[in-house]
């Protein structure tokens, strides 16, 4: 055909990272168009209502409560998105058969999975940044002027985001082999138990039964230690996590996420899409 666009010559195998970024961008676009970010409206309403109500309280208490309320809501909204969008990332693609046409293109399954993960992480990042800005603005509004806490809360916000990255990885891992409902339940359990990591450790040494000790020890090492990221209460009291704990949390997030994604890829690469 004479008017045929010359494609054969311009087709090239794109790099792995480009491919992952393209899939991530598309996953982000999906979240935006499926109105995932609408949760921000609810968050802003909650924060506004809180700020108005807190006007009645004595000075000094309102900032503490705004930070506590804002960061807790940020974590809960984020976990809600990480779980419910995360468990659907792969399952929805299989169920709706949208991945058939995509995987028939020169894309590895690992790249696909990593792209989907990063896409949701990007969605959560936007979510967390907007929510964080909302909390900072609320603090400034309450003080009727500049409040250093508006900046001081950001290391804590960063740690919340890292926790959400871990939860997203867990949800993605479960979704590679189980149904969304079961995946959501299991991820929620991991989230809850992950916040009791210290208790698991003490149970693993104090329990009377050997089997129980082994189970608690296995759970302690296997499940993510989410207490690393729990700095909402100190942040509400005006203290920020030190640099060492932040670096530790970043390293822990990276290593744990890599392990989660590696296991998820291993499972996903062997899966038959009937």
């Amino acid at each position, binding site marked *: 055909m004479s008017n045929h*666009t010359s494609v054969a010559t311009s087709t*090239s195998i794109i790099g792995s990272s480009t491919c992952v970024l*393209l899939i991530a961008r598309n996953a982000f676009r999906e979240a935006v168009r499926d109105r995932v970010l609408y949760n921000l409206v609810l968050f802003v309403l909650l924060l506004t209502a809180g700020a108005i109500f807190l006007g009645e309280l004595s000075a000094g208490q309102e900032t503490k409560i705004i930070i506590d309320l804002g960061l807790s809501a940020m974590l809960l909204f984020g976990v809600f998105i990480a779980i419910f969008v995360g468990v659907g990332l792969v399952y929805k693609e299989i169920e709706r*058969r*949208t991945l058939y046409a995509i995987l*028939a*293109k020169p894309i590895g399954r690992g790249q696909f999975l990593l792209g989907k993960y990063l896409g949701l992480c990007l969605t959560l990042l936007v979510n967390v940044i907007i929510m964080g800005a909302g909390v900072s603005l609320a603090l400034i509004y309450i003080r009727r002027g500049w409040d250093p806490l508006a900046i001081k809360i950001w290391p804590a916000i960063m740690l919340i985001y890292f926790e959400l990255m871990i939860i997203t990885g867990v949800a993605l891992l479960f979704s590679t082999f189980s149904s969304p409902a079961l995946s959501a339940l299991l991820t929620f359990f991991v989230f809850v138990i992950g916040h009791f990591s210290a208790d698991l450790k003490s149970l693993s040494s104090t329990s009377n039964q050997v089997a129980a000790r082994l189970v608690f020890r296995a759970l302690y090492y296997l499940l993510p230690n989410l207490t690393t990221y729990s700095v909402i209460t100190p942040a509400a009291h005006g203290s920020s996590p030190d640099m060492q704990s932040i670096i530790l949390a970043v390293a822990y997030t990276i290593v744990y996420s890599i392990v989660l994604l590696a296991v998820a890829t291993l499972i996903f690469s062997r899966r038959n899409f009937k």
Partner: protein
Amino acid sequence: MPVIEINNLTKDYEVGFWRKQKVRALDGLSLTVQPHQIFGFLGANGAGKTTTLKLLMRLIFPTAGSARILDRDISDVSMHARIGYLPESPYFYDYLTAREFLNYCGELFGLDTSVRNARTEELLTRVNLDQKSWDRQLRKFSKGMLQRVGLAQALVNDPEIVFLDEPMSGLDPVGRREVRDLIAALRDEGKTVFMCSHILSDIEVLCDSVAILKGGRVARSGSLEELRAQETNAIEIIATGADSSALKQVLSAKAEVTSTPSGIRIEVADEKDVDSVIAALRKIGGKLVSVQPVRQSLEDLFV
């Protein structure tokens, strides 16, 4: 040199709660497809057509056997840059518009922005998708419109081989005709088309060669002409002006006589008996209309 080589491809599905029971969907399938032709992969529902395509696209993994496409093993991801695939009853990201989806597919093949944009418009025009729909989200598309988008995305990279799983499904008669013309044009451009279908008329009109799949095995394969010529020496005689019951009596075991709206159809099993049958027909006042060899329809072979 064949562009598709399938050797002893077998697929068992594990079923049941403990997945201990096995159901064989494909049983030692072997076939080759030559370049620049339309290859029809025929079979009833559940014969294993889609399973074969999914194996070739590495959406599922074989229990045994191997396959090569364009002289590369199917596990070679880079080979996928040279092929296109339309899944059965396709579903795409419904939050994207047709234009965005094709653009995205072009990006995954590493096409430059200018080439991608031009290619997107060219393909959407080629599959006759109404221009007003190009910028509408796919969630608002009918099944036929999605099928057209599916065809377009399978051609984004200007592939050497196009795999089409039931390409006519969901299309109205006009749409079927258009898609049929499109598939024929792909062959004229030098591409190889591997097409799964259970619609015999489409295969009969389009395909250069076919393989008929039954119970996960190739029951027959070859060019359409070869297949039709197989196992038939029968001759069909059409006549008028004779009484069919009288003719039946005269011919007895030599031929099968049936009345049709246009006259009497006499099927003579052995070519040697044709002269005697014509003589008997004339004797009872019948008039000869035509004599021709019986050609098996694809349906005869299929059933």
